[in-house]
């Protein structure tokens, strides 16, 4: 292959990646520091800020009780609702199908800060106080399109003859779907669920409006801490988030063509 991708592009690409990853690398480094300021490079290594994180009641609550629980619940609901929608969109023919698909994917392009404000004002009109439940309701809106995309891609790539074969061997349509198609969709479903979790787990713009005063999610708590009293336990909390998100993406990259997600 002659003369493709000239060499001078490589240093450029490495510089762009350095820019892209710099904030994450710095956060992880600071979290292992030993002084109480944000030193980078850290002057000494310690796990002090991880201990501080795990002994802070608000951090532990926002991480385990709020962000994790809402993330898992979002993943569960979004996967069921999104998979149903995707199956309906791919397998069934009905009038306005194209419009419905556009509508279903529209939360991907609605700015989250505007959606957060809009849902907040709507709940206020209904006199419904914000809490973890309202945050979950908001996260389902923005996470489900990711599941729809994954499952749609999985269904489109599947050979319809497999299901037909099962039916010709005596399965009903529903049986063929459950016994043949669903197992083949497993990796799409897992990928969709993981992305739904990540979207919920990382979201701040909806959470700022909908999390409710008593139960900030982890990003909201980090945001408040950065504004007021900053100590490196924020870095520990952030590093944990980076590791969880990175690990999950590594996991789904093995299952699925990742680029379809953005």
């Amino acid at each position, binding site marked *: 292959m002659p003369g*493709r*991708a000239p060499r001078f*592009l490589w240093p*450029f690409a490495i510089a*762009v990646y350095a*820019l*892209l990853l*710099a*904030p*994450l*690398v*710095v*956060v992880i480094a*600071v979290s292992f520091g030993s002084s109480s300021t*944000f030193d*980078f490079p850290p002057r000494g290594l310690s796990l002090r800020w991880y201990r501080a994180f795990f002994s802070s009641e608000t951090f532990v609550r926002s991480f385990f009780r709020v962000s994790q629980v809402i993330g898992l619940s979002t993943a569960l609901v979004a996967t069921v*609702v999104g998979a*149903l*929608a995707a*199956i309906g*969109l791919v*397998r*069934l*023919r*009905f009038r306005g199908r194209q419009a419905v698909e556009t*509508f*279903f994917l529209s*939360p991907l*392009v609605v*700015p989250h*800060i*505007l*959606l957060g*404000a*809009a849902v*907040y*004002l709507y709940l*206020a*009109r209904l006199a419904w106080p914000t809490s973890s439940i309202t945050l979950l309701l*908001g996260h*389902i*809106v923005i996470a489900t399109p990711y599941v729809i995309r994954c499952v749609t891609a999985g269904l489109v790539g599947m050979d319809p003859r497999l299901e*037909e074969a099962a*039916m010709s061997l005596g*399965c*009903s*349509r529903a049986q063929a779907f459950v016994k043949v198609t669903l197992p083949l969709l497993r990796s799409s479903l897992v990928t969709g669920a993981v992305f739904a979790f*990540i979207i919920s787990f*990382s979201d701040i713009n909806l959470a*700022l409006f909908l999390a409710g005063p008593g139960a900030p999610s982890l*990003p909201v708590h*980090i*945001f408040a801490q*950065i504004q007021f009293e900053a100590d490196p336990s*924020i870095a520990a909390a*952030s590093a944990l*988030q*980076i590791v969880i998100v990175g690990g999950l993406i590594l996991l789904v990259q093995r299952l699925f063509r990742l*680029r379809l997600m*953005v």
Partner: protein
Amino acid sequence: MERAEPMERAGRSPAWALFVGPYGIYLLVFLVLPFANVALLSVYLHSPTKIAVAEFTGANYAKLWEAYYFTLFLRTLRLSLIVTVLCAVLGLPLAYLLARSTSGIKTLGLFLLIMPLMVSTVIRVFGWVVILGNEGLVNQALRLLGAEEGLRLLYTEGAVVLGLSQQSLPFMVLPIMAAIERISPSLEEAAQNLGASWGQMFARVILPLSMPGLVSGALLVFSVSMSAFITPALMGGRKGRMVGQQIYEEVLTAYNWPGAASLTIILSALMLTLVGLALWTTRRRARLEMAR
């Protein structure tokens, strides 16, 4: 035994409502109605004591012509455009490289591109605060090089542009990469065999053919930047204020809900107009090319 129905016939049954219904209804209740409520609220009268009174007025929109809001919108537009151009300049070569690299490098490259995108915005911004702060990495380096005083990097428009570009760069790279992957490498070879340098080939072959990817990337980056909140709030200070912050504050601290609603409507309208315009011009261009 039940006879298996042909797919098409089963497909025409009203079963689709069972599949598509749940999320459809959900979106009506939690997406359409909230924005309809915002539209209604935006023409309500603001009252300092009762927040919003159901009397129709155009005052919330008229107010946006005041110098303060006008500057705010102009700055938001200007910074978003700068970010979009910067992302295009940084993203195009990277997208090309990823599209044309071996699958191992591509996998790694995609992971390193998507991972930062999925980490919470607030964490990425926090990283920048540590890097750009008065005692941050850049200023330490400057002092090592002998600078007397550190630079004030944080709380400037430049900081906001840097932060937003880092956050939205993947949105630019991914669609361009997809577009370049569809361009046959033999086209590049043909251009180069006919005497074009690599730069000429890139400008005359790759760039025009990757235009659809570039446009959708630019639209994504632009809309992410237009509605940014966390980045200007933590990195912009007074100099880098953007519309997203104004909306947040009018809802949660100033309790001027009709004001926030009119800002939301105008920002959405502005974004939709620009997105529509961009799509229209590219379609028109494509048609003109075909006619030629």
